[in-house]
């Protein structure tokens, strides 16, 4: 059995959860910002993972890490992050930035993923001690500066939010970002099974924990062909009929655990 995810679009998240999907991704192109929407949906659901797309290029890395950590707290360990790397003139104009060359863009993506992971773990699991005797709420030796220095920014830390329930939020991104070694889930959008197979092998070689196939045409879903090639699939159904057809084609789904990391085994 392979893991299942889908891009939420305008679907009802409770129906997707009821169908047994491991997680939904939430593209950041709707009227409601994806991180805010994911947080809201975290309290309308109990088991499904929630992975908003947040862009590394037009956000503050510190805010991005804080927002995702907070989503993980609000959802009790169901947060994922779809790494976005918008690199367009209008997107930069909104925040006063300029386009990045390809190599610089890849470095920026790497830096933001690295600093986010460092910030999420900047509070050790047992940092809050509440020791009435000594009057210490925290053990200051277990809350760390990250002192991250990237190519284009630096962050001292620690995170203002305590360690997320999952430790690190599940990091999901396209293999085309060129940062596969840093991903928990590499998404591969390939036009053929042959290409999918070869890119999946490359992604595994690069160190992605899991490899998912992006299947855009609901009619093209062939779970039996994907078995053994990838670990999971992300669907893009555009209607509840598409969703029903996909559920039919997929057959029984793997069980969903309390946290997204446990569900995916990463």
């Amino acid at each position, binding site marked *: 059995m392979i893991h299942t995810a889908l891009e939420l679009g305008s679907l009802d998240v409770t129906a997707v959860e009821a169908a047994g999907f491991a997680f939904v991704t939430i593209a950041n192109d709707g*009227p*409601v*910002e994806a*991180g*805010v*929407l994911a*947080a*809201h*949906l*975290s*309290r*309308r659901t109990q088991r499904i993972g929630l992975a908003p797309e947040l862009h590394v290029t*037009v*956000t*503050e*890395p*510190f*805010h991005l890490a*804080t*927002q995702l*950590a*907070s*989503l993980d*707290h*609000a959802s*009790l360990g169901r947060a994922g992050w779809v790494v976005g790397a918008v690199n367009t003139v*209008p997107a930069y*104009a*909104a*925040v*006063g930035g300029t386009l990045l060359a390809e190599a610089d863009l890849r470095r920026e993506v790497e830096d933001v993923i690295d600093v986010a992971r460092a910030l999420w773990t900047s*509070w050790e699991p047992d940092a*809050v001690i*509440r020791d*009435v005797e*000594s*009057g*210490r*709420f*925290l*053990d*200051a030796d277990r*809350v760390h500066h990250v002192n991250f220095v990237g190519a*284009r*920014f*630096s*962050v*001292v*830390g*620690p*995170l*203002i*939010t*305590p360690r997320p329930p999952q430790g690190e939020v599940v990091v999901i991104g396209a293999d085309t970002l060129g940062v596969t070694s840093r991903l928990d889930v590499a998404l591969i959008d390939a036009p053929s099974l042959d290409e999918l197979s070869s890119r999946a092998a490359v992604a595994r070689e690069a160190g992605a924990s899991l490899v998912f196939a992006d299947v855009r045409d609901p009619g093209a879903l062939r779970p039996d062909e994907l078995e053994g090639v990838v670990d999971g699939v992300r669907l893009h159904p555009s209607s509840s009929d598409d969703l029903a057809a996909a559920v039919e084609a997929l057959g029984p789904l793997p069980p969903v655990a309390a946290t997204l990391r446990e569900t995916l085994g990463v």
Partner: protein
Amino acid sequence: MLHLGLFFTGVGPQLIWTAPNFAPHTHIDTFVATARTLERGLFDAFFLGEGLRVRENRGRVYDLDVAGRPDAITQLAALAAETTHLGLVATQNTTYNYPADLARRLASLDVVSGGRAGWNIVTTDNAWTGENFRNGGWLPHSLRYSRANEFVTAAKALWSGSSYSLHNEVIDIDAPPTVAARPMLFQAGDSPGGRDLAARHADVVFSANTDYDKAVAYAADLRARLAGYGRSPDSVRILPGAMVVLGDTPAAAADKAEWIRREQTTGSRAIAFLEQYWGKDLSGYDPDGPLPDIEPAEGELDPSRGTIPIEFRTGKAERIAAWRELGLSIRDTVIQVTPQHNAFVGTPGQIADEWTRYHDSHAVDGFNILPQELPGTIEDIVDKLVPELQERGLYRTAYTGTTLREHLELP
């Protein structure tokens, strides 16, 4: 009518974490339970603080107070799904945010909550906080309110359906409109720049002027500034921060207030407070003994705590000399020199009577409550003080609207 909000800072000495029943103050379940209690008590708003760097003392993470908080907008978006009426106000900084990004996130909170979003506008030029951001310390102190004003003007335009473009020394933006929204704007700054920003843009001021005479003077000053911007005197709600300590008798309330005060100023905290002035390790001193007999280090105060009120940040040598004159122990000195100006202590009836006086003179429109016990403070207010206010006709007996604007009775 009086309006009540809960201001949950999530850090600092205010919250007494040593109580056996202290609820984990960063856990979502604690926030949900608190929000539901506030809604039962017909509060206008749940108001989250923000600070963008974990506080330190002499280069080390400060370990004596509660610390750690969620991203305010993320947390409030989650709470929007758990509540139906409560206003949801996020403190957000204009120095270390992009206007287009923050305007979009606030508009999104307004949409998912059905018109219950608020934004408490804060500024900083603090380079120490800026070390967590791409352009730390970029904004000179003198321009922080100029930036804030441009930022809020841009956000309002984007919320009302317009594109917005402006490039100058304090803002660089060319952005499309957000989804239609109008979060309520809160402002707390008490400097002339802060008051001016409030008069220009705010729907609610969260003032520090809680003493009756100061509250009256503040209201007069704000209303004069409002007139300067062509706004009516009743277009802004004034909700100063307030601590409430209730007891069944006046003596019981006073005893509880004294207990709270000493819990909030433990010996270790008193030592840490002095270390900011001395700039030296004072951990060897007895908090119940006299002030340190050594001289303080040269130089300015350590900015990294973020806890010292502005009025305490200057005149270090004179201040220490005056403290020595008091002849008190370290702990009692700190209690003495950090008086609380914002506490209402008494029986529910006494406080309701006192608040009637504030209300009748139009000095305030209500209060933002600063909790000290979690749970405890809010439960006591909702169960004991709110009925007294309702009996006096000072407080709603049901929500009459669903949006924060409606709760605040603003047009």
